[in-house]
């Protein structure tokens, strides 16, 4: 009874309706879902993977394949987008773990070492070199913002991307990342604090 009512609250979600059609064998509905989410997923993965578009497309495709494989047992127990981003979050975590195993001797992105400075250090170095502030062109500023984002840890980065670009609420981010709303609040606050520290010089 509870399960039925919790399911029915998501039935108004048009993407849930599409997914239910996929469950009943409608491949056209699946195609529509892919088109609706492909750019969002590729963008999230690309920003998580430091701009690697090919890897981002591979991961985005894997999200859709998982959705397709799970269609027979699909039950609308959450907003469709929440489900999609949760799969994306799991895939991103797995991909990080795999990459971590492959590059055992390499340093984590937050560390610096013989290979050079980490993104945060780079931005801070550039920030001090740029003082007093000079006009930056658009691509220069974009590069600095990318580096600022890369200076965040993976969880902070995902929370920021989901909030900023996918406009997810704290509750939805909590559901996607399988953490509490309080944890999302502190995750986003710390991320925004870090971004402010790095980017404040570039604010007009």
């Amino acid at each position, binding site marked *: 009874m509870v399960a039925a009512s919790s399911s029915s609250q998501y039935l108004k979600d048009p993407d849930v309706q599409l997914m239910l059609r996929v469950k009943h064998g409608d*491949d056209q509905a*699946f*195609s529509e879902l*892919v*088109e609706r989410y*492909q*750019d969002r*997923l*590729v*963008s999230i993965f*690309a*920003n998580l993977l430091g*701009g690697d*578009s090919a890897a*981002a*497309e591979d991961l*985005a*495709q894997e999200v*859709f*394949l998982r959705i*397709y*494989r*799970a269609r*027979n*047992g699909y039950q609308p127990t959450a907003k469709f987008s929440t489900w999609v981003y949760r799969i994306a979050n799991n895939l991103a975590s797995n991909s990080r773990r795999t990459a971590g195993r492959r590059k055992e001797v390499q340093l984590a992105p937050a560390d610096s070492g013989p290979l050079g400075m980490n993104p945060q250090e780079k931005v801070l170095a550039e920030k001090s070199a740029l003082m007093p502030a000079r006009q930056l062109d*658009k691509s220069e*500023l*974009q590069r600095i*913002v*990318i580096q*600022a*984002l890369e200076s965040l840890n993976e969880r902070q980065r995902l929370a*920021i991307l989901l*909030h*900023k*670009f996918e406009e997810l*609420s*704290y509750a939805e981010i909590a559901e996607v990342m399988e953490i509490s709303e309080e944890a999302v*609040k*502190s995750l*986003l*606050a710390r991320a*925004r*604090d870090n*971004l*402010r520290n790095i*980017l*404040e010089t*570039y*604010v*007009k």
Partner: protein
Amino acid sequence: MDHKLSRLTTEQRYELVAYLDGELDEEATARIEKLLAENAVARADVELLAATYELLDGLPRPKASSEFTEKTLATARLAEVKPDITQSPFYRALQQSLPYFGWAAAMIVAGLLGFAATYRWVPQPHDELVHELELIQQLDKYQEVGSIDFLERLASEEPLLNELRGHSRAPATH
């Protein structure tokens, strides 16, 4: 302390961000608005947080390639040709019944352990009889002997012992 310039606590900083995101309830919103009205540091902080967050609008938003949809559908259909065992009704039924199998196995193991423990450590009435079987079999002889002192005395009587041995080896004559 002068509230106009006092530094913010961690909780207040978290709330400032949640305030910007419209994630605070009425009471917390009123609290933050009061803080902003009174505290110049908080006002500067909130402005900077908002402005730096806006810079993220300049991040690249790469799109999927033009053939992405087609490629994904084709790959999904191809995967369909090679059926995924995890989606088969048998696998799903097996997966659903796994907890029951687990419980059944746990109960069997617990039963076996219980039986083994009982068998090993709880004494049975006939255990003592089995343990003392050898003694019981010789009980008549031991009773005839009477005591250890008698046996020791007998052992020192060598001729008598030899006579008894010879008597027991001699064939019956009648």
